[in-house]
């Protein structure tokens, strides 16, 4: 029997609140399946299971906040013997009653069970009133209160979710916020991480200008024959170029922890995504070095869309081995980024712009892009940094090889 535990999704995470079980006891799960949604200070995050097996029991009820490392569920490994199913009577039996006034009785609520039937579910007055005001069907809301009752915050979350991903026919209300993202908490998290980075990491910076002509030409040509769904954006090329470059220069790919740098065998490129309304997160595209460009593009789009809806997976947030940040749509020339610890490098791209450029002896207008590398001097030196950024630039001039 394996325990599925509250993962640590970030250096600053101490606890998480379980907001949704996506799998129920008896359901088969396999490595990589998303089985739960956890609320953190960075928002609601889908968490994956790393076992193959069958969910035996859910240990933590919805709505409960538990420290990192707390067992959330028991998973019976594939092939392990089946525990006797609890009888209905046993399941329904009240918890043993301790001498009433002196013992701290466990909170009397079912931990988990089959989905509540559509009629007869409990909902609080506050939840009902809010649901009525917002036109939300309580039957579609998962309860997190005592005995699984739907409480105010459940309806509020449902409403936020609707706001973040409105049905095609409805005009969304103004000032919508993605589900479960607490911008103030996120701001605090960013503040803590960046302050730590600037305090602890000796940054050095390497700047370089790239002629994007070959890349943009190639993109135009490629996209001209594709329907919009399959079109590529420059960001996808950048992800792939960075992934390949750090694979070649591994001192920029990995984590500096406990006083030493540990390079990563795999390349997970974190993409800084600004949230509408403020804040940002940098979830990863896993194994970006091994994905084709179309696949990178599909992952990138999916990631951006999910981030803006407030839903991303735990592993996407915790395990980028290097980060890419691009302000390419905001018209700035360049930016000098701050490393997201415990990573050791971050690459920033400015806005491609047509500027004079020397080719041979001729000055001609070319679309130019300014790249900046910020790297941890404890893990690498400027010379290697220069090699890295040159390598990225070279790969961008040969887009067919990406």
């Amino acid at each position: 029997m394996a325990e599925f535990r509250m993962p640590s999704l970030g250096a600053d995470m101490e606890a998480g609140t379980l907001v949704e079980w996506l799998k129920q006891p008896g359901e088969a799960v396999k490595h990589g399946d998303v089985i739960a949604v956890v609320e953190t200070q960075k928002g609601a995050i889908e968490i994956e299971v790393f076992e193959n097996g069958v969910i035996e029991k859910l240990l933590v009820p919805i709505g409960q906040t538990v420290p990192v490392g707390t067992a959330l569920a028991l998973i019976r490994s594939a092939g392990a013997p089946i525990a006797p199913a609890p009888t209905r009577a046993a399941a329904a039996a009240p918890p043993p009653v301790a001498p009433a006034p002196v013992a701290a009785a466990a909170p009397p609520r079912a931990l988990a069970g089959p989905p509540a039937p559509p009629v007869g579910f409990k909902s609080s007055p506050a939840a009902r009133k809010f649901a009525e005001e917002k036109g939300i069907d309580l039957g579609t809301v998962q309860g997190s209160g005592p005995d699984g009752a739907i409480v105010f915050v459940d309806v509020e979350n449902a409403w936020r979710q609707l706001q973040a991903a409105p049905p095609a026919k409805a005009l969304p209300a103004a000032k919508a916020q993605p589900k479960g993202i607490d911008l103030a908490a996120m701001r605090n998290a960013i503040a803590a991480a960046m302050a730590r980075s600037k305090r602890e990491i000796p940054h050095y910076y390497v700047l370089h200008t790239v002629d994007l002509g070959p890349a943009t030409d190639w993109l135009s040509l490629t996209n001209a024959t594709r329907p919009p769904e399959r079109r590529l954006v420059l960001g996808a090329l950048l992800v792939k170029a960075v992934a390949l470059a750090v694979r070649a220069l591994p001192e920029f790919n990995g984590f500096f922890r406990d006083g030493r740098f540990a390079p990563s065998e795999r390349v997970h490129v974190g993409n800084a995504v600004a949230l509408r309304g403020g804040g940002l997160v940098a979830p990863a595209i896993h194994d970006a070095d091994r994905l084709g460009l179309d696949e990178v593009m599909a992952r990138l789009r999916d990631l951006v869309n999910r981030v803006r809806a407030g839903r991303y997976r735990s592993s996407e947030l915790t395990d980028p081995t290097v980060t890419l940040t691009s302000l390419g749509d905001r018209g700035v020339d360049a930016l000098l980024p701050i490393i997201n610890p415990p990573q050791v490098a971050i690459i920033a791209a400015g806005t491609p712009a047509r500027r004079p450029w020397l080719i041979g002896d001729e000055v001609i207008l070319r679309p130019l892009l300014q790249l900046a590398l910020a790297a941890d001097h404890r893990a690498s030196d400027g010379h290697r940094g220069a090699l890295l950024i040159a390598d990225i630039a070279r790969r961008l001039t040969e887009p067919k090889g990406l």
Partner: protein
Amino acid sequence: MTHDELKRVLLEEIGNIAPEVDIATMHEDADLREALDIDSISFLNLIIALRSRLGVDVPEIDYPKLRSLHGALEYLGARIRNY
């Protein structure tokens, strides 16, 4: 489809990619990408959505024509059947 219907669809789709923006008060000639603060991927999402709702395929080369609300309405209007 009337001009008003087209405008409604366009505004809905813009609302989907920039839910917090009050589109009703947006100037018709404003630069959408500026006014809405959207990036290339969001813009691509808009192009994809317009294709599925209106059947209009906007090639990359025409993206600049959709820079303003006014321009987008004109561009899309000209390409919709039954308009």
